[in-house]
């Protein structure tokens, strides 16, 4: 999977790496059991400091998405979803959707965007306890 870093984006580089790994998983570009390159290798391929990649991997580890290994790098392991995840997700989604409304996007437009994004996520839901996966309805 290719990870792109936008150097003019306000989001820090480690955040961009973390976000794209998550999106890659949802899209099926990455799967459980896949390995990500070792910290120094990925940093060298980008041409950035390895602490940046380290930070991204550490966040993914805390989120239960990767398991770190000194020799093999990072292994995608999707840990069981924490019980409070759904609640936290709803909180984030509410703010994120409110932002779209405040900025003048119509509910129809927002729903359309959400639908097309969800449709691009081909990977079936692997999580237990949160989200039922399946088809997307308007």
């Amino acid at each position, binding site marked *: *999977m*290719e*990870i*792109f*870093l*936008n*150097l*003019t984006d306000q989001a820090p580089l480690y955040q961009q790496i973390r976000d794209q790994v998550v999106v890659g998983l949802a899209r099926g570009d*990455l799967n459980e059991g*896949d*390995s*990500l*390159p070792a910290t*120094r*290798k*990925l*940093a*060298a*391929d*980008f*041409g*950035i*400091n*390895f602490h940046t990649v380290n930070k991204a991997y550490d966040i993914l580890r805390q989120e239960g998405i990767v398991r770190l290994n000194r020799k093999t790098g990072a292994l995608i392991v999707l840990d069981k979803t924490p019980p409070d995840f759904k609640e936290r997700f709803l909180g984030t989604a509410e703010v994120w959707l409110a932002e779209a409304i405040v900025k003048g996007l119509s509910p129809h437009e927002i729903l359309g965007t959400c639908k097309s994004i969800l449709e691009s996520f081909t990977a079936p839901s692997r999580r237990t306890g949160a989200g039922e996966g399946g088809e997307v309805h308007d």
Partner: protein
Amino acid sequence: MTSLVIFELIILLIITLINAMIPFIMPDTLVFGVRVPPQHVHDAAIATAKHRFYSRWGILVLLQVATSVIGINEYRHAPEGLWLAYLFIVLVANYVNYFMTRRGLLVRKEEEKWYAGLTESLVADTSALNREPMPTLWWGLPALLVIFFTVIVIWRQYGSLPNTIAIHYGLYGKPNAYGHKSIWLVAQPLWQEIMFTSIILAGHIYIRRFALRLDPASPTSSKQRALLLRRMGLRIMWLLAGIINLSLLIAYLPILTNSSPAGYAQTSIVLVLIATIIPVILFALVAHKYRHERPVPSETKQVHRDDDRYWRAGAFYFNRDDSALLVPKRFGIGMTFNFGHPVAWVFLAIIILIPVTVSVLTVTTNR
């Protein structure tokens, strides 16, 4: 020895010719070491830069041929130092031509704001090297066979060598240093062969760890190009190792057989020439074929980071925020150190210290 001088001049001319190939083997987006966004690869400024580069290069070739002819006729018995100075001047002149061209292009790029409105980005492929096949270690067999043969020659010859042997021959083929026979001294070609082969072996083993720099505007084609050149480069390095090992053995045969060096040095140089020119031409042809990145859609704003500022004098990479120790060279073939990485300076010190120590040891142990 005039023939040796002629050989040196031929090598110099080849270096100049290789210099002229640089614009042909580099990707369209990296012209004379200047990062060019895909939207500007057909700019008039680039054509002008190439024109100027080749005009100066043509003058250099003419000057080189003229001075070489004069040199062979008038100064063929001049001190060796004079020829070395000449070699140095030609190398510097070629570099200055590259540097001036680069500088001119950088000014135009700055004036015309080539990066305005574009998004500077970086890209990495998380699976790029793990799944890509790389050449096997069997490519090292010729180099190993020569090492094996060198051991046999040294083993057979050692007993028959006198106690004092010539250990170095000057440019004109006269011995200029002698030493007491010792295994350290007699086995010099073997030590050098082992050192050279070990470096290539280390490169082969760690090849997947080397930084793979891709272009965000064309990640797929830049990856294909980089991997193709990497595989080819590794094979060429192994063949080069075999031929250089052989040339080392041949160059040291006068010492090992305690005979006149006539012919040996020349044969050795011819071998190195063949070993260098043929792979360089092959490599250049492949690099040339794949230098055009996939056409970039006009709406693409995501382009490779403008990294000109990290290349000091257009040749030395210095970036403290880059974790890579070795990065692809700015003008094409091979890798170079990131001098912003502290370990690079350690390696540089080792590279300088090894030949110095060997020379000092050779001189002190034989006085």
